[in-house]
């Protein structure tokens, strides 16, 4: 049943976000091209002829317009992604659509998990589209892009030579997994806040916003106390900061962050499912 729920949640994305995901890299490519054109035009303009001045001005205008469009699309991706995550949960489970979803023969955790998976996928693809677009612009904006890639390559080679490939490979894997978990955590935190917010009869939106802030503050206090306890009880951990085994330390640190993030996801999920199972308050 979870697969069927995900199918319907994913279907609702296709109409809004897919065009933006395609549009961002395409505009980034145009932007990148227009910057290269601008650089080329500047070279000609050194000769200071009237024609070359006009060419330079024209290419500046084109680059400016493409840049504006690009930033517009990036903001649109960000806003649409956040709106999508909030709206699909709010409208899909807590408003009229809830009468359909909560009477389907499925468990409440399946409804929440389906929305969570779908929103995480949306968050990941939006982030990927944004990163890809930025890389495209960077390649266009920096003429010596080949040099940069070469330098990145030699940096990786140096690290591998010094530290061995094992720990740094783990770091890369853990970083990717942590990024995905971070997106899922953000999604679930919003879900828990909305689930709490629907309990505030007549002030559901305000309740959700207050709950979101409350959850953030509560988590900061708990993690602060935990970190203080760790510092007091295990001062020998400082040993890892000496830089001799940075790869291993980084991997373990990322693993620790990943476990904490997974713990957060589980806690927000359980809060959301409990409230929606026992205290559902449909409009």
């Amino acid at each position: 049943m979870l697969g069927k729920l995900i199918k319907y949640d994913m279907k609702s994305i296709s109409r809004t976000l897919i065009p933006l995901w395609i549009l961002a890299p395409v505009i980034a490519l145009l932007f990148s091209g227009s910057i290269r054109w601008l650089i080329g035009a500047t070279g000609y303009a050194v000769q200071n002829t009237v024609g070359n001045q006009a060419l330079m001005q024209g290419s500046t205008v084109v680059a400016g317009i493409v840049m504006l469009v690009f930033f517009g699309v990036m903001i649109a991706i960000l806003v649409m992604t956040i709106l999508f995550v909030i709206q699909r949960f709010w409208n899909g489970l807590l408003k009229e659509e809830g009468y359909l979803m909560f009477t389907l023969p499925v468990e409440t955790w399946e409804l929440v998990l389906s929305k969570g998976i779908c929103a995480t996928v949306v968050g990941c693809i939006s982030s990927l589209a944004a990163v890809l677009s930025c890389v495209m612009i960077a390649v266009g904006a920096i003429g010596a892009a080949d040099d940069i890639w070469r330098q990145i390559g030699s940096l990786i080679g140096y690290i591998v030579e010094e530290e061995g490939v094992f720990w740094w490979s783990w770091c890369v894997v853990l970083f990717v997994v942590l990024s995905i978990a971070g997106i899922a955590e953000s999604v679930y935190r919003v879900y828990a806040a909305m689930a709490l917010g629907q309990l505030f009869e007549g002030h559901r939106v305000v309740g959700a916003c207050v709950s979101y802030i409350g959850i953030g503050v509560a988590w900061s206090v708990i993690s602060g106390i935990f970190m203080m306890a760790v510092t007091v009880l295990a001062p020998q951990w400082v040993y890892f900061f000496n830089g001799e085994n940075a790869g291993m330390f980084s991997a373990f640190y990322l693993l620790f962050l990943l476990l904490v993030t997974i713990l957060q996801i589980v806690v927000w999920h359980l809060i959301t499912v409990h409230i929606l199972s026992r205290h559902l308050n449909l409009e």
Partner: protein
Amino acid sequence: MGEILIQCQDVWKYYGKKEALGGLNFQLSSGRIVGLLGPNGSGKTTLMKVLNGLLHPERGMVLIDGETPGIYTKSVVSYLPDKTYFADWMKVSDMFDLFQDFYEDFDREKAEQMCDVLQIQTNQKMKTLSKGTREKVQLILVMSRRAKLYLLDEPIAGVDPAAREFILATILNNYNPEGTVLISTHLIADVERVLDEVLFIQNGKVVRQEMVDDIREKEGKSVDELFREVFRTVPYGGGAADVR
């Protein structure tokens, strides 16, 4: 008399401090059409929500086909809420796909035939349909299931008399005769002729449960007349207005 389909024993539900159901007791058998009748705010919608698992009672026992509300009961209950529940992006055919995927008892062919009769295009988006057409699609979805229990919450409220006729005819022509239909309403006169049994509910309690034929034979009254008698309130200033 069929098997017991719904059992409610000492069911209590609160909204904050307000009591919505106050120790509700009743049983319903399968194979009949039952009217859940009561004035506004008497607890009809709350009871419907408790029966289909949207709300959890604070106390008491609710059994449908011998099970507490959960996945099994949701698979045998066909619920028509008093709101339309469609997502804007969905087409009529998307809703049919969804029902086909989740309910084994959904008869897609029947649903499509009903749409044909009403000239509703299944490739139309929900947001392009009028409110009345959306309500009809919802009714089609609910009545195209061969459910054990149909919970219809105010199906004829807020519609014109012709639409009421259509809704009642759709219910009568399409429900599973082995199942039970529980219709909540306060428009008694319109539904009276289709009912086998009535439950009168007031302040979250069942105040009367009778077979419709018994009311007519023993008391010589229509259900509408009995309803007015049971729920009569004296207006401010005294007297009574006959608004029939």
